[in-house]
């Protein structure tokens, strides 16, 4: 979660417009991820039997790709509504962490601005905003908000457009294409770069082994149990790594 150290706060504080444009520019590389990911969700949702309106309801209302795909996957398995919600929200727990991490920077902003920031809080906007705010501690509040808006000004509409295109084109995909594997490939591609430390790897392995071990639990509960165990495993390994590092010095 530590962004690369940027240049110290030498430049004059950003104005609103410049902040917005800066955010916009910083977000450009993320479009390469957001567009295909949105299309995958649209295609998979249509294949699963959702209407285009329902698909857009997910993408506009929930606006969190990984949890949308997770919910969809459990829905195709006809899991109980409560399990679908609990698992998808578990995927989104990290957003509360992002919220806590941005709160010191955006706390003084008006409530409507904080609500807007919250609704648009995704991995990408969090990473960009946190890196920028840390690098420019004297950035005035309006510029912070403008930067944030800039960083999502393209990502959000493109996510929605891509979902829509996927949902519409999903109907025309020829039968026999292995669309079923879009979800595993997308998730593996998202997870792999996250496996930065031994703690992350241990959590991921626990998750996989746990799901297989608890496959017999009813109501698709196995995944939730495995996820809780995996979080505990990650935290414990992290503690152990920190302790070992201290002892080594």
């Amino acid at each position, binding site marked *: 979660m530590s962004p690369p150290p940027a240049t110290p706060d030498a430049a004059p504080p950003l104005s609103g417009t410049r902040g917005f444009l800066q955010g916009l520019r910083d977000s450009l590389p993320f479009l*390469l991820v957001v567009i295909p990911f949105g299309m995958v969700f649209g295609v998979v949702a249509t294949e699963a039997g*959702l209407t285009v309106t*329902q698909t857009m309801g997910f993408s506009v*209302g929930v*606006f969190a790709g990984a949890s949308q795909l997770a*919910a969809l996957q459990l*829905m195709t398995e006809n899991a109980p*509504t409560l399990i*679908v*919600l609990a*698992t998808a*929200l*578990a*995927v*989104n*727990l*990290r957003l509360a*962490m992002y*919220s*806590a991490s*941005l709160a*010191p920077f*955006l*706390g*003084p902003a008006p409530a409507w601005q*904080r609500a807007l*920031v*919250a*609704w648009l*809080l995704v991995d990408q906007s969090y990473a960009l905003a946190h890196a920028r705010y840390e690098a420019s501690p004297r950035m005035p509040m309006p510029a912070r908000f403008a930067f944030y808006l800039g960083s999502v000004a393209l990502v959000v509409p493109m996510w929605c457009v891509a979902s829509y295109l996927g949902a519409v084109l999903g109907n025309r995909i020829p039968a026999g294409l*292995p669309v*079923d*594997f879009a*979800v*595993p*490939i997308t*998730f*593996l*591609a*998202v*997870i*792999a*770069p996250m*496996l930065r430390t031994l*703690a992350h790897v241990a*959590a991921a392995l*626990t*998750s996989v082994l746990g*799901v*297989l071990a608890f496959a017999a639990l009813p109501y698709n509960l*196995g*995944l939730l149990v*495995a*996820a809780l*165990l*995996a*979080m505990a*495993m*990650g*935290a414990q390994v992290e503690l152990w790594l920190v302790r070992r590092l201290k002892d080594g010095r």
Partner: protein
Amino acid sequence: MMGYSTAQIWSIIVLLAIGTFALRFSFLGLIGRRKLPDWVLRHLRYTPVAVLPGLIAPLVLFPAATEGEPDAARMLAALVTLAFGLWTRNVLWAILGGVVTLFAVLQITG
């Protein structure tokens, strides 16, 4: 195919949207006056890697498309995606590697 009524699907969408917003607004709404204790943050850090691998493991090992029989093409595609992701640290390259592998092996094994 899914066995949910339209009302059930919409309630999932609406409740998920509300719940997700609540998570996002949680601390921004409280103006950051309260800090999460360290042990909570330490657990939250691992939520993505704790949930997502477990979600996809059965899909990789026992794909529904082959009636749950382990499938070489899907297994290899998953391995290549993971390897590319670890190697390049880039989501797009990983997806591309996995998709190309999947199609290539399916083509060969017909």
